[in-house]
């Protein structure tokens, strides 16, 4: 790998292929994510967006293709591997334990101990609670107390906790799978503001969404997938109506920027 790509991209995915039986979910997809960039990933159902992100987050192992993190080739056997390399995923259904408090969820699976005793290690509550407090203050999340149980939070607050949790451990890339699905209008605003805040603080983010207006609002660049292929890779610009029309044209197959590659194959 040369020095320039090392500097420019935080993630490069090169001709990723993944099949499930006879179904080719991904047919050679290239994706690059620059440092401090928000990338929107759109496409119809079964276009391969979730599969692609599951490959990046270690949930699926690709049949072919390479993943490079800051220019270095990596391979993930499971989500913990990916997480250790700085890839964090925010799942659609929040993936929170409602019976635990906010701090407990942020540190779930990564508890900090005061006394090391293996599984009987003694939890360092003051440290974890303080760190969580700093985190939600930094991200401007409005939660009364880090000791509040997650089941008592609103949908928007829960999503904010899920996102905060992903950012808590110096993530290089944060992947958000439909972060605004199933939220009220006010809560959607809250989450999008959080995404903008994260970008302002230097995070690199990939967002999957069905809601084109959300992608339009927060993304720098957008990739459209269709039937397991990338059909568009363009900056987000123009007014929203023009943007929407353009995206839909790619999603339904009326336009395709990479058709010649398909022919070449």
């Amino acid at each position: 790998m040369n020095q320039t790509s090392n500097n420019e991209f935080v993630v490069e995915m090169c001709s990723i292929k993944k099949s499930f039986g006879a179904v080719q979910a991904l047919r050679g997809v290239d994706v690059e994510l620059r440092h401090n960039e928000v990338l929107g990933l759109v496409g119809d159902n079964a276009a391969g967006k979730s599969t692609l992100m599951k490959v990046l987050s270690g949930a699926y192992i690709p049949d072919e293709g390479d993943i490079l993190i800051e220019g270095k080739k990596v391979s993930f056997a499971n989500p913990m591997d990916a997480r250790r390399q700085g890839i964090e995923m925010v799942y659609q259904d929040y993936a929170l334990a409602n019976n635990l408090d906010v701090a407990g969820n942020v540190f779930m699976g990564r508890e900090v101990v005061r006394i090391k005793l293996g599984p009987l290690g003694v939890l360092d509550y003051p440290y974890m609670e303080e760190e969580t407090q700093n985190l939600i203050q930094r991200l401007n999340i409005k939660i009364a107390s880090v000791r509040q149980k997650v089941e008592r939070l609103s949908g928007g607050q829960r999503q904010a906790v899920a996102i905060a949790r992903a950012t808590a451990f110096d993530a290089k890339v944060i992947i958000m799978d439909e972060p605004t699905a199933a939220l009220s209008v006010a809560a959607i605003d809250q989450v999008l503001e959080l995404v903008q805040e994260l970008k302002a603080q230097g995070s690199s983010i990939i967002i999957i969404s069905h809601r084109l207006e959300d992608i339009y609002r927060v993304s720098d660049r957008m990739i459209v997938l269709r039937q397991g292929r990338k059909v568009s890779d363009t900056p987000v610009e123009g007014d929203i109506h023009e943007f929407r029309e353009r995206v839909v044209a790619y999603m339904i197959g009326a336009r395709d920027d990479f058709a010649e590659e398909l022919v070449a194959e």
Partner: protein
Amino acid sequence: MSFADDVRKLLRENIRDYGMFIALFLIILFFTLATDGLFISPRNLVNLVNQTGYIAVLAVGMTLVIVIRHIDLSVGFLAGFLGAVAAIAMEQYGLPVIVVIPLVLFLGILAGRLTSFMVADLGIPAFVATLAGWLGYRGALQLVTRSTGTIIITNQAFNDIGNGFIPEIPYASIMPEFQKSTLIIGLIGIVIFVSSQINNRARLKRQNGEISSTGMFILKLLAGSILIGGIAWILAGDRGLSWTAVVVLIVAIFYHFMTTRTVLGRHIYAVGGNPEAAELSGISVKRITHVVFGSMGMLAALAGILFASRLQSATTTAGTLFELDAIAAAFVGGVSAAGGVGTVIGSLVGALVMASLTNGMNLMGIDISYQFIVRAIVLAGAVIFDVTTRRSIT
């Protein structure tokens, strides 16, 4: 805010936590009045604790099993069977107690791991897997006691676990009418209680968390101290603390600490709250399932030892329906069948509530059929209370 308002606010916000203690207090008060103080006499209190012991130990293990959304129906007969194994090991093979107890506890862990193998590795619902265990251990118990019938245990050290009392401090001649060792344990208990409460409050204050007023806090400290001190005082005036009570205390303290302060405890509750999320966070749900059922098996073995020791024998029907008593105790104690919710202390109080009802109604000479109906009402009432108060908060 006036003091009375403070009390009301505290009660309203913590009714779920304090509800059970209040219920237990009312039950004790009622039976004390109804039996002219017989209920609270040292002899009966010792009896009550020793009767509750084996169910309490099972309820602690059952709490964790229910927290991770499973159930264990096999523990009653497993306890009975392992009690019989202990009796046979001592009476027929002449093994010393010091070998028999660890051996039986180890067998308990193995039995628990067998269950968790079926549940976690083979994916069989815990209800079915442990129902099979219920049948199997029942058969095993009958098999090992078939030739002998009830096995009388002659080992004094073993029988002391269920019937004996902690020794007096040698050469302590002051206050001859009280057992000093029990008083000292009570005193240590008060010191631990007060210091942990003060620590906790200081931590909350540092983090600008909500704390109750100083008056309320002192009242709480006083109430707790009087309760611990009072029980120690009553017991010390008789024969002192029973070994069963010591065993239950050790189990309670260890499990309370494990569930509230350690990584393992946190992982158990995370798995109970959202198994998928826990797995995605790198917590192995399988491993937690193995640990929880393994601990349940070990506690079943301990319950078997306590019961056999108390009866000074292993009977052919030992352990019958223990599992349902333990499950009832856990639910009375605030464990939620949906998983993720429930505390060790809650289940212990639940066990004490159910045992107090039986004990008190026995003292009053109430017909056994009414006893079952009263306990049914208390169980249903406790869970209804739990569900409705939870709904009003969220």
